[in-house]
């Protein structure tokens, strides 16, 4: 039983659509989901895209993904990375795939030379909050904005 994680590439649009739709359904947001595989193929085929994704496989089968996009902090004057989604298909939950994706995102961010990974958390999602706190993220309570940087980012990536 093994988890492998790789960058999403051209041809992964349908896989990503399935995973992110599953996330929308899990959160009760299916009415807000309208993306089509070709919408994803556009950025997967663009080497200068502002966004992308990592795909996690469980024994070779696509099981989850994390999507990212470029962001910028004017306070530090550097590119940062914003994580839009982290999704694990229902059959593959509780195998550590979400944690592995978060670690892989931290590695990806450092490899790009960016100092910060940040994302938003649903206020009701206490389980995710615990996972992120364990990963070293600082969670700003006012807006459930999670920030991973400095030593905590290095630690998670290593």
């Amino acid at each position, binding site marked *: 039983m093994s988890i492998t994680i790789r960058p999403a590439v051209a041809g992964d649009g349908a896989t990503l659509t399935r995973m992110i739709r599953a996330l929308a359904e899990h959160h009760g947001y299916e009415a807000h989901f*309208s993306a089509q595989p070709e919408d994803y193929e556009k950025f997967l085929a663009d080497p200068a895209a502002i966004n992308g994704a990592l795909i996690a496989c469980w024994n070779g089968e696509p099981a989850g993904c994390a999507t990212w996009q470029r962001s910028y902090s004017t306070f*530090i*004057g550097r590119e940062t990375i914003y994580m839009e989604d982290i999704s694990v298909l229902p059959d593959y939950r509780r195998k550590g795939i979400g944690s592995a994706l978060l670690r892989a995102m931290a590695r990806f961010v450092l490899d790009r030379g960016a100092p910060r990974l940040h994302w938003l958390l649903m206020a009701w999602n206490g389980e995710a909050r615990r996972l992120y706190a364990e990963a070293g993220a600082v969670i700003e309570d006012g807006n459930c904005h999670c920030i991973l940087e400095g030593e905590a980012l290095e630690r998670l990536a290593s």
Partner: protein
Amino acid sequence: MTLEIRPARPGEEGLVLAFIRKLADYEKLAHEVTAREADLREGLFGPAPRCHCDLAFWNGEAVGFALWFYNFSTFAGKAGIYLEDLFVEPHMRGRGIGKALLKTLARRCVDEGLPRLQWWVLDWNEPSIAVYRALGARPMDEWTVFRVSGPELEALAS
């Protein structure tokens, strides 16, 4: 009395940084600003720009700015614009300068076929929240993130 809004030009990164510092001061976060002019020069005007900036001039005097970059909604499968910073000099408020900066971005969204303009606001910043609501922006459920899209985006752009 004339208001002009135009993109920042190379050489104006010091002006942009001064506005970033003033905004941070207003947000009580001045201690978090570590960006230098060289960082902003690279981010705004380098070979691979990471962000964009519009400056507002009142009778030729720089009085405000909007710093933004492109983002991507995985649920909609569409790119959009994310507004990172918006600031108007305190003594110049109440003249519609902030609204004009937002309108410029809304028009860009419509012109480029981008369905959404999005930004965050600190939850204690009631004066700004009131202005954004009046413009048709709505806070997302359970997130403290503001977006304007669809008819409200069209209205703001017009």
